[in-house]
């Protein structure tokens, strides 16, 4: 069993779907931070069987984690101070998402102008519906 030590201040993102931690690493732009990051893949979990965990040692105001609410509701965000969990952060759906998902409407201007950022706005918070800023098409996740 692999042991990864405690962090003093920062976040522990737990219950990440197994294999998805690197995607989150990219979306949160952790590569741009000059801090310690532990990526734990395929950790044993009673609840999930297997899960990923991300530990980020940073000032707790440094990261905007709201995008996690869009990416995966099941992720638990533990806020760490002085080596202890001081809070579980509630994730709020972001009003706007930029360059995380792509508009799949072939009639959208983004389909021909490659330089445009893909921007979505939250059009219905209760139903968690995001629409493209340009064509207003509802976002639907690609089928796997």
């Amino acid at each position, binding site marked *: 069993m692999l042991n990864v030590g405690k962090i003093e201040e920062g976040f522990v993102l737990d219950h990440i779907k197994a294999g998805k931690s690197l995607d989150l690493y990219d979306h949160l732009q952790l590569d741009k931070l000059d801090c310690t990051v532990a990526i734990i893949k395929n950790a044993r979990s009673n609840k999930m069987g297997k899960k990923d965990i991300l530990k980020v040692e940073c000032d707790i105001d440094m990261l905007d984690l709201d995008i996690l609410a869009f990416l995966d509701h099941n992720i638990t965000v533990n806020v760490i101070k002085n080596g202890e969990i001081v809070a579980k952060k509630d994730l709020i759906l972001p009003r706007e998402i930029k360059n995380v998902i792509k508009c799949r*409407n072939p009639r959208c*201007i*983004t389909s021909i102008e490659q330089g*445009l950022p893909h921007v979505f706005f939250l059009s219905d918070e209760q139903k968690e519906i995001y629409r493209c800023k*340009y*064509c207003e098409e509802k976002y639907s996740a690609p089928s796997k």
Partner: protein
Amino acid sequence: MRHLISPLDFTTEELDRLFDLAASIEREPGRYAHVCEGRILATCFYEPSTRTRLSFESAMIRLGGRVLGFSDAGSSSAAKGESVADTIQVISCYADICAMRHPKEGAATVAAGKSRIPVINAGDGGHHHPTQTLTDLLTIRNLKGRLEHFTIGLCGDLKFGRTVHSLIHALVRYPGIRFLFISPEELRIPDYITEMLREKDIPFEEVIRLDDVLPQLDLLYMTRVQKERFFNEEDYVRLKDFYILTPEKMKLAREDMLVLHPLPRVNEIDVEVDHDPRAAYFRQAQYGVYVRMALIMTLLGLAD
């Protein structure tokens, strides 16, 4: 700086002011014949739309302004691969206001984000065509004397018709509107619109035959039923006559019912109906010029 990208960009109060100005222009065109002197409208049409372009150009010329532009993407720098964002930044140096038509949805939004001059969306694919909606509203307001408390029948292709969708979204902001959707099963109004109407508790009905509901209507908004929308020729032949307005069908309608159509029509309104005083579609095209005049003045800050 204001733009007009979606039909809902203006509040109903702002629309009232715009329509009052359009009515004033209609009454006293001479008073407005020079208000845009020295101003230039750019018509950037990435796809041909003669009627809309000419309506904009007529509006600007009638205000004493001038126009420049292109009428298809092939004759513009888009053919060389220039982005909409770059084009509008250049056009901002040449003109004072821009009307843009583009086959892709959201193109006008992109332009408005980069523009230093007001942008009017003159149609972005199947998405919005706000000046058509303003035209429809002004026509109803002027000929009916009100924008509330009436029953409107929308007939034909209700699935793909963006003018119909925009008009519904604009009309639900007024009280007492009842909608009757008249279309073949294949071209029914999309679910997201009927859901929106249910949520707002706005009465509506969906029917197949125009004859069945004609006597109930204060307004009939006709659209074209295109053959290529049907799965097979048989269905088209069976259904198309339900959606052709003839003098015989007009006998079922009220004396004061108005017939509107965004034009161009093909055969869905018999030319004989043109002589009926209730046929308002050519007057609607005239109102299209007045409302564009009022819009240009408003966006250029010349309305007061």
